[in-house]
């Protein structure tokens, strides 16, 4: 029996080592991308550079998903996060024209930054120490369907979402609609837009000296040009809000 086991072990050994090596390579590349991007996000001054570093981190996380055979989530991670959310960030940065560097030296609290770094390092040490003394896993496995076994990753995920998690899945639809409505309401201008005045503003403009009603006698030609230009400017100068 031993003689039959040993050749199978020898035959299996190189393949396992190769699989391990490639898994470790993917893990290490993903970890390097994640940490590079994360430190870029919190250290760079330009918001556009921060958003691009966020993309690097998201691609690293997608690599780690692939390394753990979560293929569907890796694709969704790239499409939703890198394709939609970061683009939304970049849209807001470009649209508002705030891609200038963050002003330094006007901190309200001087000791906030070193204190935050110290607290972050302490919390990291605590979590890692906790992981040494505590167990990683508690509870019973496979409450909502097994991950391994026959069928693809997408099939099992879909079966779980459309059976056991059907109500939360439908609630996400309501959540997205509410978010879209909220975005429209929040970014709507409440005041009159330029060139469109309310009746109060029109009355105020008519009663202002120098900007008389239409039936007033026309001013002299030379002064009229100046007055007209001024009035045009004041009309255009009505603030948007």
């Amino acid at each position, binding site marked *: 029996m031993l003689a039959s086991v040993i050749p199978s072990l020898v035959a299996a050994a190189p393949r396992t080592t190769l699989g391990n090596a490639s898994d470790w390579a993917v893990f290490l590349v993903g970890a390097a991308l994640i940490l590079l991007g994360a430190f870029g996000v919190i250290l760079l001054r330009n918001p556009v550079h921060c958003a691009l570093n966020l993309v690097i*981190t998201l691609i690293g996380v997608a690599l780690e998903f692939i390394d*753990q055979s979560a293929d569907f*989530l890796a694709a969704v991670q790239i499409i939703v996060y890198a394709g939609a959310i970061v683009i939304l960030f970049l849209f807001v940065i470009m649209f508002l024209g705030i891609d200038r560097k963050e002003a330094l030296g006007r901190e309200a609290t001087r000791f906030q930054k070193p204190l935050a770094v110290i607290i972050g390092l302490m919390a990291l040490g605590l979590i890692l120490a906790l992981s040494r003394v505590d167990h*990683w896993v508690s509870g019973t496995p496979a409450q909502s369907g097994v991950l391994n076994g026959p069928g693809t990753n997408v099939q099992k995920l879909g079966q779980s979402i459309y059976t056991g998690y059907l109500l939360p899945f439908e609630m996400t639809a309501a959540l997205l609609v509410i978010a879209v409505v909220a975005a429209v309401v*929040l970014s709507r201008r409440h005041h009159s837009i330029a060139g469109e005045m309310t009746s109060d503003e029109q009355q105020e403009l008519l009663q202002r000296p120098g900007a008389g009603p239409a039936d007033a006698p026309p001013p002299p030609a030379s002064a009229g040009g100046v007055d007209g230009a001024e009035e045009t400017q004041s009309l255009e100068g009505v603030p948007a809000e």
Partner: protein
Amino acid sequence: MSVPAAWYLILAAILFLVGATGLLVRRNVLIMFMCIELMLNAVNLTFVTFSRLLNDVGGQVDVFFVLVVAAAEVVVGLAIIVAMFRRRAAATADDIHILKG
């Protein structure tokens, strides 16, 4: 299960705390938002790791829902930031009080 799950969890812990530290350090609201995304990604990585460890598809379903909620959160948050910029051409965390009433 080639790479031990502990390595993924350590990586997720580091990513989470980098995001949390950035949230405390930065004052630009947009970058604070990006740090929240970093923390959400760390939690997603933890979910997927435990999903593999426990052989349970529920962890991956949770990541799916976290992605949806993160998308909705970003939409509303960026709309609030745009509303802040309408009132004042700055977006530091100290300017949020202008949204009052």
